[in-house]
């Protein structure tokens, strides 16, 4: 009797001491396997000859050499560069402009904000479908403008290999600029009213107040928005698939669609893995400094 009772107490003590660790350990194990284990597997495969099936013989940098000599990869990178830079600039400019306009104590601000932000709730597949229809070379915008009397107007970017990537930019900015607006608006609202009043007393106009007082204060928002937008851009897969499917040909391929295509359609595992590693490296380079600065900031 006494023995089992002590046993219980010992067991309870043990549980009390270790329960938190026991609860967290599945999470820990999951991260280790499904994030780090998988990354390690992909990195390893990128250094092998793997084709249709994984082949675990080490073959050095051959897949990376293949990747960087594949014209399709270079097109994907060029597209990523065009898309990312225009997407970030467009979202920032529109987002900031709308945030400043909404900051002027508008009566129906809630409604307007809701309208600006709803695209973010939708799947890129859905919005891509909508934009594909609007940008349709014969029935979409082209037809509207021609209907207005401009018979020779043509707008066939969606099927023009040189211009198709810009249609992705248009749809991308439409989808995400409202989100950037919300980020900036939250930043603007957090600026102390006293500072704004002091500026008004000093005779600063609205442009000066924003330009040299408020915007420098919300500088961290620019930084966050940049990181989030570049993250969205590098991972962008859905929008391209929905809008152009990477086409015409592979004119609108980006690294994400390149990887998918090489992994699941062409079964070139090694090259697909190498492209995935390149994406990981890029995102890590942007994110690690950001996370470091976020985590060092004192908790709110």
């Amino acid at each position, binding site marked *: 009797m006494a023995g089992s009772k002590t046993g219980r107490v010992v067991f309870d003590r043990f549980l009390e001491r270790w*329960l*938190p660790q026991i*609860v*967290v350990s*599945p*999470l*820990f194990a*999951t*991260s*280790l396997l*499904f*994030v780090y*284990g*998988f*990354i390690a*597997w992909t990195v390893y495969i990128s250094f092998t000859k793997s084709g249709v099936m994984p082949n675990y013989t080490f073959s050095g940098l051959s897949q990376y050499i293949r990747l960087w000599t594949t014209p399709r990869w270079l097109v994907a990178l060029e597209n990523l560069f065009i898309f990312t830079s225009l997407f970030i600039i467009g979202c920032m400019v*529109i987002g900031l402009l*709308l945030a400043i306009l909404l900051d002027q104590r*508008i009566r129906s601000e809630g409604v*307007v904000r809701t*309208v*600006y*932000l709803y*695209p973010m*709730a*939708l*799947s*890129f*597949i*859905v*919005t891509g*479908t*909508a934009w*594909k*229809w*609007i940008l349709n070379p014969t*029935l*979409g915008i082209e037809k*509207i403008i021609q209907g207005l009397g401009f018979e020779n107007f043509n707008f066939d970017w969606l099927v023009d290999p040189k211009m198709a990537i810009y249609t992705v930019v248009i749809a991308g900015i*439409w989808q995400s600029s409202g989100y950037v607006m919300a980020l900036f608006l*939250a930043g603007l609202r957090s600026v102390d009213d006293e500072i704004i009043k002091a500026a008004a007393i000093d005779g600063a106009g609205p442009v000066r107040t924003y330009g040299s007082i408020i915007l420098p204060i919300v500088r961290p928002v620019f930084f*966050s928005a940049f990181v*989030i937008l570049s993250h969205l851009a*590098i*991972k962008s*897969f*859905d929008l391209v*698939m*929905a809008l152009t499917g990477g086409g015409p040909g592979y004119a609108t391929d980006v690294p*994400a669609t390149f*990887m*998918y295509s090489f992994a699941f359609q062409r079964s070139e595992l090694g090259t697909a893995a190498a*492209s*995935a590693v390149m994406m*990981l490296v890029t995102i890590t380079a942007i994110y690690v400094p*950001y*996370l470091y600065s*976020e*985590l060092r900031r004192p*908790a709110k």
Partner: protein
Amino acid sequence: MSQESGIVRRKGLRQVMLRGLLFAVLILFCLYYLMPLIVMVSTSLKSLDEIRTSSLISLPQAVTFDAWAKAWSSACVGVRCTGLEPYFMNSVLMVVPSVIISTILGALNGYALTKWRFRGADIIFALMLFGSFIPFQVVLLPMARMLGYFGLAGSVYGLILVHTIYGLAFTTLFFRNFFVGVSDGIVNAAKIDGAGFFKIFFSVLLPMSLPTIVVTVIWQFTQIWNDFLFGIAFTVGDSNPVTVALNNIVATSTGVKEYNVDMAAAIIAALPTLLVYIIAGKYFVRGLSAGAVKG
């Protein structure tokens, strides 16, 4: 005196004009954001003949719901002409367990990591944080192999597993950030009263975290419902989620292109998250900003 009132009036007029300009710009942007939705809805209510003769932005002359009926129950997704219905159900079957499991586990982990601080808790958190922003392309190949190995390839169960695992990083993050702000005093008081690990969690902290639960559920719901990458990589035909099926309907190149059916299908696929946004927009936005701090 008169000069003074003149200044006031001129300033007033300028003020009114600026105000008018401000509203004009804001309304113009409202139209810009709403246009695709308006075009989708109005196109879905037109007949094919009307689409060919009318313009994109003209409202339907004779409203018909045929395209909606077809999109839901008889449109061809690839070679199967079953409409979106079975795929919509796949998405429901996928999203409900994934959201519930990842939210519960996230709450539990967030709690253990903040209120029972043990050595290594910060390292585990940092490791997990990294997992929430990796490009998923880097885990796509090994995941596909593992799902195949466990016989889950091409099934809704495989997607439930994938979404639960990669959602866990976010849900833990949300709850961790909330619990960090909760005073330790509450937990310590409960400990002195003799409450254990789970008792404190269920009767003290969980009831407090209701808003965080709502934010997490909404965030997870929209993320998983809108997912396309995992859906297209890990499922085939019958088990496709609605986003993949929608893409297949739209990408079908055989036969007459039925734009009205495409648009109706797109709205059906968007409806759940759109409703969530309209009903619980405040929480949706909070989820966005909670996700924003880390990405």
